[in-house]
């Protein structure tokens, strides 16, 4: 070996070794960074998972409540909304699953043993909850989730634009179509119901006089009324009066606030943002009836707290849910009314929530009570997806609604068979 090559060799060896060490060291050093928080709390560590609410201050609020809890150290995972389901569901398969999380009541989570029975903590205050919120979380007499907020969804309209076009607030779907036509001008579209129209899937079923599943958990959405509704939706879709391809989805009031449309389907939560942007130049109305036998409807969505039944700290998690979402009424009201507007599911809180007592907010509460429909716990994610395909196929694409519904039936029946036998 010449000296030269020896030196090269040594230097290279040293460099390799250094790189290797650095890599190993980096990995080891960062291995402890698992987001589980330091051990400042007393003993138990809990992890809760939330989807990212759009309203400013929401994340800080949830973390503030958690910090006020003394019995356990609660860490929050705040997941952006489009990724929420995939992240929650993949996490639930593992040991790293959150101890508690928010979601909607869906029976497959109960049947597969993913969520814990919360009957014992809810029972004492059951009468203070909106009965519909109890019913939608109950399977075989057991209650599986605590409702945090109810979110009615309906149409928002620009008063000035309707006045200018001499249009009254629509009371039937035909009037809505007519209004959309009259309100459409060069740069403004009459109506926005989301790019994929899926926000109005459920209300279309109800306003056509049907429902998703009947008492025996059999298909009840496949009716002549729904077929008629789908045909009308198709006419509206091709009329050129709908805002389509907007950069934001319908849960975001941006399109309405930016003046891209005169009427938008959105939710109660958006009221503060709309008030900021448009002052008093707006009002709300329910999804109008589609057929003569139908009735106007409002979708009462919302979010509920669930406890991971397979988690390591089921009891501690239940204690926390009880503390925050049952005992701490002050936080519950703050959560429902200080950021976006939501309706508190607790009657006693709803009665004292002053922000919901006047103006459009009060009107929202009225629509919620008069026209509202709640989630059916038997209507699962897979069925939801199947019905979304009906909309995509028969409204956006020109498939015969009967045929699209038949396809949906096949998928839904497969699910029903697996769930109820």
């Amino acid at each position: 070996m010449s000296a030269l090559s020896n030196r090269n060799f040594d230097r290279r060896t040293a460099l390799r070794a250094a790189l290797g060490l650095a890599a190993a060291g980096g990995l080891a050093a960062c291995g402890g960074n698992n987001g589980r928080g330091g051990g400042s709390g007393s003993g138990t560590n809990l992890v809760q998972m939330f989807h990212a609410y759009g309203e400013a201050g929401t994340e800080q609020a949830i973390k503030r409540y958690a910090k006020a809890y003394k019995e356990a150290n609660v860490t929050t995972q705040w997941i952006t909304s489009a990724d929420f389901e995939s992240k929650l569901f993949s996490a639930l398969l593992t040991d790293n699953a959150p101890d508690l999380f928010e979601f909607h009541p869906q029976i497959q989570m109960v049947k597969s043993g993913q969520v814990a029975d919360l009957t014992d903590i809810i029972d004492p205050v059951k009468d203070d909850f909106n009965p519909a919120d109890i019913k939608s979380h109950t399977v075989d007499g057991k209650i599986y989730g605590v409702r945090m907020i109810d979110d009615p969804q309906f149409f928002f309209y620009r008063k000035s634009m309707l006045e200018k076009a001499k249009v009254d607030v629509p009371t039937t779907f035909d009037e809505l179509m007519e209004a959309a036509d009259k309100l459409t001008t060069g740069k403004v579209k009459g109506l926005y119901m989301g790019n994929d129209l899926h926000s109005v899937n459920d209300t279309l079923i109800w306003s056509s006089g049907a429902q998703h599943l009947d008492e025996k958990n059999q298909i009840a959405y496949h009716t002549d009324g729904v077929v008629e509704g789908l045909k009308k939706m198709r006419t509206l879709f091709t009329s050129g009066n709908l805002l389509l391809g907007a950069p934001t989805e319908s849960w975001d009031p941006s399109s309405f606030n930016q003046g891209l449309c005169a009427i938008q389907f959105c939710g109660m939560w958006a009221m503060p943002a709309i008030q900021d942007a448009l002052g008093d130049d707006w009002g709300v109305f329910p999804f109008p009836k589609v057929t003569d036998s139908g009735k106007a409807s409002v979708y009462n969505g919302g979010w509920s707290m669930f406890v991971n039944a397979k988690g390591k700290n089921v009891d501690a998690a239940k204690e926390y849910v009880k503390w925050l979402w049952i005992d701490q009424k002050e936080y519950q009201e703050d959560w429902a009314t200080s950021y976006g507007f939501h309706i508190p599911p607790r009657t006693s809180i709803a009665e004292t929530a002053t922000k919901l007592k006047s103006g459009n907010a009060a009107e929202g509460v009225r629509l919620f009570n008069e026209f509202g429909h709640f989630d059916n716990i038997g209507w699962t994610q897979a069925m939801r997806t199947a019905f979304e395909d009906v909309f995509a196929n028969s409204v956006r694409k020109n498939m015969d609604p009967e045929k699209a519904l038949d396809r949906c039936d096949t998928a839904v029946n497969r699910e029903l068979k697996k769930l109820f036998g």
Partner: protein
Amino acid sequence: MSTTTKLDLASPATAKASSAKPRRGLRGSPTFTFWLFTGPFLIGLAIFVYAPILWSLWLSFFEARFTVTPDKFVGFDNYTYMLTNDDFVGSLGTFTVFAAFIVPTTWALSLGLALLVNRMRFMRAFFRSVFFLPTAVSYVAASLIWKMSIFSGVRFGLMNTVLGWFGVENIAWLIDPNPPWYWLVIVTARLWLQSGFYMILFIAALQNIPEELYEAAAIDGAKSGWQTFWHITLPQLRATSTAVILLLLVAAYQAFDEFFNLLSKTTWGRPPLMELYYKALGESQDYGAGSAGALILTVLICAVTLLQGKIMGFGRGDESK
């Protein structure tokens, strides 16, 4: 370059190896050395690639809903379900058509760019960089620019603004499937993202074509231009073309990211992976059926690849010389 190597899958590596005899006992034995070199990779491959594949295979024979440790054996039920599912089978068909379109288009565009750039005297590095830069953009970011700005369906989208100057009404590019404008959006995004990389492969290949071939052709009276392109350049690029087409085919069938971001919640233009995501692997959490579908797709990709290899002579690089 001093050497020319071939894409010779078929030629056994062992045959090429020197006849060096093991000289220093176990440590020097080729078998030991082979595992010394490949061991770390193969162990990782076994743990992080093969174990999950086998796990999926196992899942596909079970009713695995909301769990990945199922106990209810269902035989081939999941496979029957996926193969009789119109949407899934339909997406396989759609994507065969899509592949038949996007693969030649990307091939032609990358080759075209490579030929242009390769002929430049000045600013060559500049243009090469411009065409390659999109490779550095993630699918997420590109989808965002396409969806929110260029092909947004409202008045402030770039395309609608440009069309507006000619009095054309706003078009909802991604929302209304009639006419199917969404293909324009998908195809332009994909071409923008991908062609630069393949262009680099072609430029590299062009630089390896021996100059003498062109000189000899010139002596034979071949005209510079299309003639030399057809008779020298194209045949010389055969091995590269074969490899590029293989990569493009696999990429076409595995397409997911930009479709997921651009065409969520449609029933059309869904690649098989997106169909699987909606039907099984995503929110519906039917991992048995999902795994079955993914394995069917794997078999299809293998079949198409082998077929392409047979047609284009994959691994017969030597003959193209």
